[in-house]
């Protein structure tokens, strides 16, 4: 049966058909749906882990125990999981072990656009790269086979356009793969210097064998057409190339590390002009250059952002699309914003009012950096808010700590914020950490986490008590506050930043998009009472609109959270029904 599947859904299908038994992940766009779809198969144990490092360790454990196992993450998640990855490369596997990593060229939803192939090269781990949903499933199954045949973890690298595009996939049955026996083998699984020194040469040898495999594997194929132009490409760039160049010759690489050097040499010798088309880093191109093969690639195409057929046509073939209209408007951008009713709005309104330096983190609340809230000062990576606030204090002294807070979401705090908090307590810092507890992992589309009390399957479980956790690491000042109670919240922040000891404020209010959150009646502005002071505009609520001579509330967007009624000094905002 053929079915239209999202790339990530096809990966999940591949995991199912490959007979895998264990999957662990931390959500991250564009990889999240892989594990959400895996969770729909009851034959596979699946879970949300607190972070990518734990997720990979769970998968490694399952593999050593004999099961086919996998984990999924976004590109920056692989940095977190790099520690187990580099050494799992030495131990190799028992049951097949596959790591799905989704890169985000163009940074649709990320803080950088690093290229996973570079990390894989450092870790000496093979990489497969599918170019559509059908290959997502095929390559996933192939990855498990390669993993077991060559005793190695395998990375399947996706990019946003493959992960988040739907295409037709032929569904097959699940292979019932038996769990392999577990045999104690410290020389393979205990990586201390003496054992690791013996494993590393095996890893080098394995890469050589994988290079030979790449030469003859059906993963890499030549599609002959006109030989005036030859294109070496992989992943989504293959699709763009096919559309831009049409019927020329292609070396389509499904395995991008290690590369099939003989195949590349043969292909290069039979075409007149050779191009390498790959998004991000010149990975294939550098390999060609090392081999002394003349190619054109990054000299014409960027190492930044996504490609498209149009871009390739323009940069390489010199064909530019004409403009067919006389529309030459200045079009205002539409950046993402905190939703109407978002609990973070109250927090940032207060932090901005108090003119605090805000060390920020990764999540919806990163949007607190943009106008008009303009509150967040820094954002680097998951968990960085706390360590950085501590660093600011150590650099500039106690007085600076009195004007600084770290803000971090509940899920991000569990991911890697708790270690930063321990650092503050242990090293006698006095920083204030605000945990924005909206009771969900928000930006990635509502995944449960250890602080929500539910598993990926929606089953009830032990819930991490954030207050007790902070107290347990030695924070004596921990308080829970509703960020929509602006007065009380402001008082709490003032007191905690003034305290000369570490403190935590748990700003607790659920995400407005959660199904159980009841929305109020939309509000409206009484033009008689409104003095146009625009205090409400400072909240940056997308539902409040400035029409120049008056302000109004867009009732299609307003969820009746009533935060604006709390900042209005003239009682001009009331339930919209009142004005009808």
């Amino acid at each position: 049966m053929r079915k239209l599947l999202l790339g990530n859904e096809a990966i999940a299908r591949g995991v199912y058909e490959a007979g895998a038994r264990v999957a662990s992940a931390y959500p991250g766009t564009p990889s999240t749906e892989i594990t959400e779809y895996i969770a729909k198969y009851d034959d596979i144990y699946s879970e949300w882990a607190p972070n990518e490092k734990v997720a990979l360790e769970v998968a490694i454990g399952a593999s050593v125990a004999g099961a086919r196992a996998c984990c999924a993450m976004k590109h920056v998640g692989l940095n977190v999981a790099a520690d187990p990855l580099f050494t799992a490369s030495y131990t190799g596997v028992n049951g097949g072990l596959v790591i799905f990593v989704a890169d985000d060229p163009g940074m649709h939803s990320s803080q950088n656009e690093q290229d996973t192939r570079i990390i894989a090269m450092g870790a000496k781990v093979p990489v497969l790269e599918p170019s559509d949903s059908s290959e997502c499933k095929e390559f996933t199954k192939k990855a498990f086979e390669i993993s077991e045949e060559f005793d190695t973890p395998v990375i399947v690298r996706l990019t946003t356009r493959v992960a988040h595009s739907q295409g037709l996939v032929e569904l097959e049955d699940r292979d019932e793969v038996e769990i392999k026996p577990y045999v104690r083998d410290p020389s393979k699984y205990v990586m201390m210097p003496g054992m690791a020194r013996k494993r590393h040469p095996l890893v080098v040898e394995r890469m050589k064998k994988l290079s030979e495999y790449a030469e003859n594997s059906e993963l890499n194929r030549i599609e002959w057409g006109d030989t005036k132009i030859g294109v070496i490409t992989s992943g989504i760039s293959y699709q763009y190339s096919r559309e831009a160049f049409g019927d020329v010759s292609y070396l389509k690489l499904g395995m991008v590390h290690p590369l099939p050097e003989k195949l590349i040499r043969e292909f290069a010798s039979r075409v007149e002009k050779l191009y390498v088309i790959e998004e991000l880093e010149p990975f294939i191109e550098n390999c060609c250059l090392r081999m002394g093969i003349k190619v054109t690639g990054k000299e014409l195409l960027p190492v930044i952002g996504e490609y498209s057929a149009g871009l390739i046509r323009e940069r390489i073939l010199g064909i530019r699309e004409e403009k067919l209209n006389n529309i030459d408007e200045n079009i205002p951008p539409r950046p993402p914003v905190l939703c109407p009713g978002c609990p973070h709005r109250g927090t940032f309104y207060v932090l901005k009012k108090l003119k605090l330096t805000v060390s920020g983190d990764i999540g919806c609340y990163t949007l607190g950096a943009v106008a008009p809230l303009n509150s967040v000062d820094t954002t680097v990576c998951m968990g960085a808010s706390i360590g950085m606030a501590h660093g600011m204090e150590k650099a500039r002294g106690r007085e600076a700590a009195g004007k600084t807070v770290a803000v971090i979401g509940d899920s991000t705090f569990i991911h890697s914020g708790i270690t930063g908090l321990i650092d503050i307590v242990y090293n006698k810092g006095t920083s204030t950490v605000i945990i924005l507890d909206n009771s969900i992992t928000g930006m990635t589309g509502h995944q449960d986490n250890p602080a929500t009390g539910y598993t990926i399957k929606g089953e009830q479980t032990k819930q991490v008590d954030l207050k007790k956790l902070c107290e347990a690491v030695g924070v004596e000042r921990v308080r829970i506050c509703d960020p929509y109670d602006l007065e009380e919240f402001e008082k709490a922040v003032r007191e905690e930043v003034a305290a000369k000891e570490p403190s935590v404020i748990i700003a607790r209010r659920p995400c407005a998009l959660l199904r159980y959150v009841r929305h109020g009646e939309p509000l409206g502005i009484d033009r008689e009472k409104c003095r146009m002071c625009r205090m409400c505009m400072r909240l940056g609520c997308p539902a409040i609109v400035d029409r120049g001579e008056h302000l109004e509330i867009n009732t299609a967007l307003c969820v009746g959270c009533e935060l604006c009624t709390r900042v209005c000094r003239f009682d001009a905002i009331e339930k919209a029904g009142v004005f009808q």
Partner: protein
Amino acid sequence: MSNKSIMIVGVGGQGTLLTSRILGDVAVSLGLDVKVSEVHGMSQRGGSVVTYVKMGEKIYSPIVEKNEADILLCFEQLEALRWIDYAKKDGAVIVNTQMIDPMPVIIGSAKYPENILEKIKENYPNTITVPALEMAKACGSTKAVNVVMIGVLARRTGIDREIWLDAIRKNVKPQFVDMNIKAFNMGYDFEEVR
């Protein structure tokens, strides 16, 4: 049938994802190759979102290029303007008349462009403007804007009405099927008042 390219543009939260899934299912029912490129993550938080649907004999790139869209389905006026270069000169440009101010306009650092519909109509003879928000309200939910728009689009594709209705039944929750079919029919039977 030659390859058809459809672009759906709007504001995060307007239901463009469901729209593209229904279109994808219709293409599958017709036995065509199809690719649908979606947007997840940050821009779903009220940002500008664009979804591509391509169907035909064999589809490579999931992305629609400038001057290539046979149908540009716009859920919001400013977004229609932002992506208008992607429409074919004789392509159908279907615009919901709804306006949603982006944050730079809300805070007064930019102006919402004027006379958008006129400008688009002047350049693209096949433009249809649809008061989809009002129509959706009349069906019982402002959330049905997307299905009203699908209805308007459906009649311009020449694809059998039943195929569309099946795709809708497949993609919406059972309790909302009747409301959505009402919204689809209202869109399908819509005639622009000129």
